């Protein structure tokens, strides 16, 4: 019997998750709306003085992205766990790490990528300069996949536990702090007239490291949770 090839499996898993999300469109949109809502709350809370808002903008957008990412983590494994399809996927004669990578990729496309695309609109609300907006988008583009990956680890570890959402956030948010720091740092350097490259390069390094380790660690976490 043939094994499914790695690229085919990756594609199949991504396709499957995307189709499932399309048929339950509400889920995806709520994450996006939450992001927009949280970002819009800040000017209401701290006042509309443009100077202050401009300084706060990268931080606000990044924290909102972080929270939106946490919110959508329930979707990654939970539904499949409930109806038994997750354990079937764990019985596939192919690398579980790659399976997890596929799920992470689909999750990012549904939760991270929309945020990246809508960030410029939100940034304009905060009167960010064109260059700052560009760096913000790039930092989110590199950083949100890392958030999805760290989130996958947390979701896998807390599979089926009550207290789900809050517990995952408690586990995952501390681990996301470096991404937050360098993501906002990149945009802040633009405001300070310095190159954003060092920060973005570090974010890129995080992305690479996560790609190497998180799928495998998350697969182990899934096995532990399934016992």
């Amino acid at each position, binding site marked *: 019997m043939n094994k499914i090839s790695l690229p085919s499996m990756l594609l199949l898993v991504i396709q499957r998750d995307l189709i499932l999300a399309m048929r339950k469109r509400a889920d995806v949109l709520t994450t996006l709306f939450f992001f927009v809502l949280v970002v819009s709350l800040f000017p209401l809370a701290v006042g509309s003085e443009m100077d202050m808002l401009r300084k706060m903008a990268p931080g606000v957008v990044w924290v909102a992205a972080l929270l939106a990412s946490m919110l959508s983590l329930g979707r990654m494994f939970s539904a499949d766990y409930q109806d038994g399809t997750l354990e079937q996927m764990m019985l596939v004669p192919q690398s579980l790490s790659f399976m997890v990578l596929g799920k992470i990729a689909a999750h990012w496309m549904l939760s991270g990528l929309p945020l990246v695309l809508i960030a410029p609109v939100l940034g304009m609300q905060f009167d960010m300069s064109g260059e700052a907006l560009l760096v913000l988008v790039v930092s989110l583009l590199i950083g949100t996949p890392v958030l999805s990956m760290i989130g996958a680890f947390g979701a896998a*570890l807390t599979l089926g536990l009550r*207290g789900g959402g809050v517990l995952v956030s408690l586990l995952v948010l*501390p681990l996301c702090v*470096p991404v937050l720091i360098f993501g906002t740092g990149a945009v802040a350097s633009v405001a300070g007239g310095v190159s954003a490259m060092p920060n973005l390069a570090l974010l890129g390094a995080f992305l690479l490291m996560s790609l190497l380790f998180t799928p495998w660690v998350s697969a182990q*976490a899934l096995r532990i949770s399934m*016992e």
Partner: protein
Amino acid sequence: MAINWFKYSAPSSFYGLAGKMIPWFAWPAAVLFCMGMYIGFFVAPTDAVQSEAYRIIFVHVPASILSMFIYLVMAGYAALGLIFNTRLSSMMATALAPTGALFAVISLWTGALWGKPMWGAWWVWDARLTSELILLFLYLGFIALQSSIEDPRRADRAGALLAIVGSVNVPIIYFSVQWWNTLHQGSTVKLSGTSMHIAMQQAMFSMLAAMWLYAIAISLSRVRSIILERERNTHWVAELAEVKQ
């Protein structure tokens, strides 16, 4: 701790051994604590810049050091439990977590107490204090995860994985926060002068040793409770003097 673990790797044998060991750590801890506090608060000279308030470092610094050291030891035991499937190692990791968290809280609290006379603020976003705060969250995450899982085996293994990933992340988090702090030019909690008076050193080491021995004593005590709870359905627990009453 150079003990032949193989003989004592069964919870039933370790229970007795741990019980005997506790006083050997607890008493020296108490003595060293008194010594350290006396030297630190009465013998060591007043600091040129920070006057009397600086004395809080004799609690703050050892607590910070231990909070990080205990995390690594906890992760180490958890890893042993995960790799070799030894339940006692996992129980030790679970026993260490609350103590580590306590030291993190003490470190943060004394950091604040120090900050107030120094900077006029109860909290400063110093790189070390911020990292300490994140370390506290890592501890709380570990404890929360283990309490949410009913199956002890899954709790052990999930906690172990979390602790290992956490310990790999601790240096990354620390350096990120360092970097962030220099960028935002936050305040730094520092000792004045590069060399410490001999009495200060004595006080510091005394307190460090005292807290370390205390950590060992309290963790041994805690692991005994954990052993009793997990082995409550076995024969040897039913036979214990303290249980039979």
